[in-house]
């Protein structure tokens, strides 16, 4: 059927040309599949929610340079002023900003003492307004009360007795039943007990590349720091108008400090994932260009092979072959070459993936992606050969009678 045997025999006479196209298809497939895989991996990371009301949240750094500064009084004054600004939902002082890649981590353990198994977590120091400002949901237990909030002095090593953790962290601590975490005592800094009083649904750690990014804990601390951050959540759509207003409010109320880095969480997200985004853009460009090069290669070679066979094609037409039969010949030929290329390509793709897995600690590729990649290349090959095949079919039978 479909003169396949004939085409293969003809191909064997001009092995090299066909093999070159097959190899191109193979390489393209190997690169394409792995690049798409890496793009998917990054997109997946980027689409994770941080848990915060990102669109309406911003933060700033309050750097104090004055001497003999009353941190405690000034912080209360600042927070009072910010919280009472029309349009502000709530505000807190916080030690680190989610997604910002800079923060504080501590390890918790079930039993006190050295040499016990620990689980690391991001740590956010907040007051009783923390949950409301971050925009996270308390799904079990309770929030901190005002009397739980302690002052943390610089270089203090003791921790408060209560904590609120994320659901993901509760699941890691109590794999059988995360809700049972409520009321349990865990240990921080090896020996200090801490009771889990609440569980929030989601709050990411600051480090977007960390594999335990969903593990976070809140502790009821206010910092005596000469470079503290304030996180502010506004009513929907009022962030941009309030940013300069609050910056001015703080800067003018006290000349012993600098208000700097007034930043939206949206910008922080963008910056944290900038490399991810850039890499994805580059990989997309690579895939498209590569596919185009392969397609043009197929076009170029097909045109040449048709030009060389003009007389043969004319003879076939003179002997009764229809235009469609001529076209079909080249399309089947391309299909056979593609089949060879895709077969080598699948082996190559898996090979490249194995190398990526071992060198860059990526996860192994799925079969579905390879199948989709192979299908795409078959289609691209058929489309590319369409124009030359059509040209071949238009060769008049009369050419058979002419010499050169």
């Amino acid at each position, binding site marked *: 059927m479909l003169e396949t045997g004939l085409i293969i025999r003809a191909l064997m006479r001009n092995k090299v040309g066909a093999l*070159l196209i097959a190899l191109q298809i193979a390489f393209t497939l190997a690169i394409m599949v792995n690049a798409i895989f890496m793009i998917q991996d990054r997109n997946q990371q980027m689409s994770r929610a941080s848990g915060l009301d990102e669109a309406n949240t911003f933060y700033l750094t309050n750097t104090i340079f004055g001497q003999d500064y009353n941190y405690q009084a000034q912080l209360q004054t600042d927070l009072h002023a910010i919280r009472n600004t029309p349009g502000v939902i709530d505000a807190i002082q916080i030690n680190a900003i989610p997604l910002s890649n800079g923060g504080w981590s501590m390890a918790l353990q079930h039993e006190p003492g050295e*040499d016990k198994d620990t689980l690391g977590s991001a740590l956010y120091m907040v007051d009783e307004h923390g949950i409301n400002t971050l925009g996270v949901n308390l799904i079990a237990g309770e929030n901190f009360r005002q009397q739980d909030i302690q002052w943390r002095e610089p270089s203090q090593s003791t921790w408060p007795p209560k904590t609120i953790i994320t659901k993901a962290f509760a699941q890691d601590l109590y794999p059988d039943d995360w809700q049972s975490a409520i009321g349990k005592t865990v240990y921080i800094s*090896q020996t200090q007990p801490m009771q889990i009083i609440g569980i929030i649904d989601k709050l990411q750690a600051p480090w977007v590349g960390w594999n335990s990014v969903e593990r976070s804990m809140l502790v009821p601390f206010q910092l005596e720091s000469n470079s503290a951050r304030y996180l502010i959540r506004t009513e929907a759509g009022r962030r941009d108008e309030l940013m300069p207003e609050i910056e001015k409010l703080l800067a003018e109320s006290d000349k012993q400090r600098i208000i700097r880095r007034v930043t939206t969480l949206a910008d922080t997200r963008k910056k944290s994932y900038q*490399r991810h985004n850039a890499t994805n853009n580059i990989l997309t460009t690579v895939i498209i260009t590569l596919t185009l090069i392969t397609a043009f290669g197929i076009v170029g070679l097909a045109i040449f092979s048709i030009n060389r066979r003009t007389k043969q094609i004319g003879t076939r037409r003179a002997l009764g072959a229809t235009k469609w039969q001529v076209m079909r010949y080249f399309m089947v030929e391309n299909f056979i070459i593609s089949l060879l290329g895709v077969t080598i390509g699948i082996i190559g793709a898996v090979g490249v993936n194995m190398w990526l897995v071992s*060198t860059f600690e990526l996860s192994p590729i799925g079969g579905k992606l390879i199948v989709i990649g192979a299908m795409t290349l078959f289609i691209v090959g058929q489309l590319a050969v369409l124009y030359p095949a059509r040209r071949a079919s238009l060769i008049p039978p009369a050419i058979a009678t002419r010499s050169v």
Partner: protein
Amino acid sequence: MFNYYIKVAWVSIMRHWGLSLLMVCAIGLGIGATMTTVTVNYLMSANPIPHKSEQLFNVQLDSWDANDPFDDGQNPPTQMTYIDSTNLFKANKAFRQTITSQSYGVIESQDPEMRPLFVSGRANTADFFPMFDVPFIYGSGWDDSADQSKAQVVVLSKVTNDKLFGGENSVGQSIRLDGNVFKVVGVIDNWQPKPRFYDISTGAFDDTADYFAPFSLVAEEKLKRSGNTNCWKPFGDGFQAFLNSECIWNSFWVELRNDEEKANYQTFIDAYVQEQKQYGRFPRPLDNRLSTVTEWLENQEVVADDAQMMMAMSFMFLVVCLLNTIGLLLAKFLGKAPEIGLRQALGASKETLFAQYIIESGCIGLAGGILGLALAYLGLNAVEVMYGDYMQGLATLDVNMIVLAMLMSLVSTIIAGLYPTWRACKVQPAYQLKCQ
């Protein structure tokens, strides 16, 4: 004869201009992609201080937890504790040595009109400047006695000096940093080693500090410290407890002039750790390292995985482009079989034909290389825009890269042209003539 071949090549290229353009584009894209990624990798892994990178050593001591070793036991901690860096410093066993860590502060200008300036700084000891060949515009660094006497002296960057003193010689003037008065002893010129090898824990491609001040002032709490801090053992309250802790937050560099000095220093730090073991510190097996600048950058994997992976990808991309070129050249040269047969029949030797077709391939390669350079230039600009701060100033083509690009396209195209040329020369004149 060479000029004649070029002329023939030109005629041949122009006759099948569509196909030639396709080849030039393919090579151009391949070279463009490869050069973009190679340049990024090359600049990321560049040697920031080539003339003495083999004499400067980062010192690593394994002071970490016996049960949970640093980096899973692969490498000792990347920074040093305060106890160890000051102990090594006091021992003074190297030709030159410096402790360095990150600092920050607020400078208040004498000019009441000027708003206070938030600045990033570096706390280091005197040898930092001669060790790393820091260029000065005015004055110089401080000397050892300033470190010991905890003198409140400061070296400013050019940018800071421009802001505070309008770029004038400020040596001898004083500035108010975090409420303390510091005397300016020097102003450095623009100095931006890339990667910033002496401190990669806070960003290997970050900017140089705005000021430099004696490390001994950190313990006096006259200089605020910042940067990466890593602890494995709980410690008590207060700053003194922090200084005495097992937390790592500064780095220690030495300059050793030859192998003998290096061997002696290694013996010294090993003995130091053995001695510390008596006090119950250093529970891990002995693993102290002296790494040259290049070893250090290699070990700390300054070149991002992304960049390396892209480079690998772009080389495969180039292979596809070359396969494409081989195929197209083959088609082109074989299409000329009748012409080749005729020329052979008229007495052209195989060598002549060979030279001619190789030159034709080379011309296509050169054209592809020029296109590739243009694309690499665009590609690098795109990389710089897309990656932002992280790649700032890293994405530039230098002469080495331009030469490499041209050589790479020329050589790879000639190699790609070898097989088609060989096939073209194998044409049987008699057969071709008969077919006519």
